[in-house]
C-alpha cells in the first residue's frame, strides 16, 4: 500500500505540470520581465537600456510628485476602509445576530451587488452624482444648495465608487467573524451591569478585532490596487499608483518608470494580503 502510494504520488506531479507550466508562462515570466524592466533605464519611448540600475526606485522616493501619488493612494485606501467599517460593522452585527426571514434576502442582495459587472456599477453613479444628477437635483429642490456639487471626476467620486465595490466584502467578512462570537458573552456583560455601549466596547470589539483587522487589510489592498473604478469615476484627474502605472504604459511610454511603480504596488499588495491571511488563520485557530 505504502509503496503504491509513492508511485501514485509521482504520477500526480504530472497532473500538476500543465497548470504550473501555464502559470509560469502567463504569470511568472511576465512578472520577471517587469522586474527586469524596472531595473533598467529608459532609452526612448517604449525602449529600455541594457545597463542595470536602481535609479527608477531611488528616483521614485526622491521625487515629491511620486511621493504625492503614493500618499494620495494610501490616503484613498484609508478613507475607503474607514467608510466601509463604519457602515459594515452595524450591518454585519445585525445580520449575524438575527434569524429573521429577510436575512437570506439581505445577504443575497449584498452578494448580488458584488457580482454585477464593476464597469456597469460605475456607470450607474453618473446619473446619481453628476452635476444634473439625482443627488444634486434633490439637494437643490430642497434648497440646501444653489450650485451643484461636483461628485464625479474627482477624489469624492473615486471614494464613493470604491466603498460601493468593497462594502459587500467588508460586510460578509465581518458577518462571518461576529457569528462566531457567542451571544452569551455579550449577555453576560449586560447582566453584570455593563451598558450596551460598554458591552460593545469591552466585549464585542476586542473579540471581533482580528476580523476587523483582516477585513480592513483586504479592503485597503483592493482599494489601492483598483484601476477600473478610479479610472472611470476619477476621470483621470485622481492620480493614484494604478492610474500612474497605466499612463506610463499607455501614453507616456516610460516603461521603466511604470514598471518600478507597478513592482512597488505588487510588493505592497502581496505583503498586506499575506498579513491579512496570517491574522485570519490565527483567528480561526483560537476559535
Amino acid at each position, binding site marked *: 500500500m505504502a509503496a503504491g*502510494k509513492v508511485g501514485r504520488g509521482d504520477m*500526480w506531479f504530472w*497532473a500538476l505540470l*500543465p*497548470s504550473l507550466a501555464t*502559470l509560469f508562462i502567463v*504569470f511568472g*515570466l*511576465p*512578472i520577471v*520581465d*517587469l522586474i527586469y524592466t524596472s531595473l533598467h533605464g529608459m532609452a526612448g519611448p517604449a525602449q529600455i537600456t541594457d545597463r542595470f540600475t536602481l535609479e527608477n526606485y531611488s528616483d521614485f522616493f526622491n521625487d515629491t510628485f511620486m511621493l504625492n501619488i503614493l500618499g494620495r493612494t494610501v490616503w484613498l485606501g484609508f478613507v475607503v476602509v474607514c467608510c466601509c467599517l463604519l457602515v*459594515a460593522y452595524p*450591518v454585519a452585527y*445585525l445580520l449575524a445576530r438575527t434569524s429573521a426571514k429577510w436575512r437570506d434576502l*439581505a*445577504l*443575497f442582495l*449584498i*452578494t*448580488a*451587488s458584488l*457580482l*454585477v*459587472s*464593476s*464597469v*456597469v*456599477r460605475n*456607470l*450607474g453613479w*453618473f*446619473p*446619481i452624482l*453628476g*452635476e*444634473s444628477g*439625482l443627488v444634486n*437635483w434633490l439637494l437643490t429642490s430642497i434648497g440646501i444648495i444653489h450650485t451643484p456639487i461636483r461628485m464625479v471626476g474627482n477624489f469624492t467620486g473615486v471614494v464613493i465608487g470604491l466603498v*460601493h465595490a468593497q*462594502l459587500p466584502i467588508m*460586510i460578509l467578512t465581518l458577518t462571518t467573524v461576529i457569528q462566531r462570537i457567542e451571544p452569551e458573552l455579550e449577555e453576560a456583560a449586560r447582566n453584570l451591569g455593563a451598558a*450596551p455601549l460598554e458591552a460593545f466596547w469591552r466585549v464585542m470589539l476586542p473579540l471581533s478585532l482580528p476580523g476587523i483587522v483582516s477585513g480592513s487589510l483586504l479592503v485597503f489592498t483592493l482599494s489601492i*490596487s483598483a*484601476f*477600473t473604478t478610479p*479610472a*472611470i469615476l476619477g*476621470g483621470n484627474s485622481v492620480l493614484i499608483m*494604478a492610474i500612474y*502605472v*497605466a499612463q506610463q*504604459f499607455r501614453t507616456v511610454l516610460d*516603461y521603466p518608470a511604470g*514598471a518600478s511603480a*507597478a513592482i512597488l*504596488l*505588487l510588493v505592497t*499588495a*502581496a505583503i498586506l494580503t499575506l498579513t491579512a491571511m496570517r491574522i485570519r488563520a490565527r483567528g480561526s485557530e483560537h476559535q
Partner: protein
Amino acid sequence: MTNRHILTAILIAALIFLLAPIVVVMVASFNGGAVMSFPPAFLTTRWYHEIKPIFYQAIWVSLLVATGSATFSVLIGVPAALALCRGRFPGRDLLSSLCLSPLMVPTLVTGVALYQCSLVFWDFTGITIGGTLFGIILGHLTFGLPFVIRAVIAGHARFDRALEEAAQNLGASPLKTFRLITIPILRPSIASGAAFAFTMSFDDVPIALFMGGGDGATTLPVQIYTNVQYDLSGDVMAVASLVVVVSLVVITLLNRLAGSDLFFGAKQ
C-alpha cells in the same frame, strides 16, 4: 429595542446604497433627455434600438474570452488541484502557494507585465499575442486557474475518501471510480470555481485593456470603459442594462442551484 431600529435603518440605507447604481443604470437607459441627468425628462426605448454594432461584437468577444478561459482553467486546474491534495511529492505546499500567488497581485500589474512580455515575445519571434483574443484568454488564466484550483482544494477538504475505497472494493477500476465517484462529488466545487472564473473574466478591465484592443479583441467592459471616457451616449446605458438583466438571471439561477455559498466557496 431602539438599538435594533437604528441597526435596521443602517442596513436598509446600506442596501439602497448598494443597489442604487444598478437600478439607476436601468432607469437611465430609458431616459429620453440628457443621459446624465436624473430623474429622466421623459421615457423612451430608442437607446435600445440604437445600440451600436461594436457593442454586440464586444459582447460576443467577452463571451468567447470568458468561456475559453474558464474552460481551460477547469481542464488543467482540476487535475492540478487533485495533485496538490493527493500527491506525495516534495515541495507540495510551496507549489500550492505558487499556484495561488497570482491572486495576490493587482490585475493592473499583471496586465502591464503581460503587455510588456508580449512585446518582448514579438521582438524575438514575430508572433503577435498582445491585442488578440488569444492574448486576453491567456491573461485571464492568471486568475481563472487559481480560482478553480482554490475552489477544488476547498471542496476536497470535505471529501470522504472512504467512498472511493468502497467503489474500488466493489470492483470498480480506478478510472471508473474517478468518473463515477470523484468527479460527481467534486462537481459543486468545480462549478463554483468555473462560475467565479467566468464572472471575473466578464468583469475584468485592466488585463483585457492591455492584452486586447486589436481587431475583434475588445471585450464589453473595455468597450464601455472607452465609451465612458470619449462618448457617453444613451446606448451605453442600454447595453449596461442588458448586462444587469443577464447578471441577475445568472446570479439567481446559481443561487437556486448551489445556494448562496457557491461564490463563498470560491472566495475563501
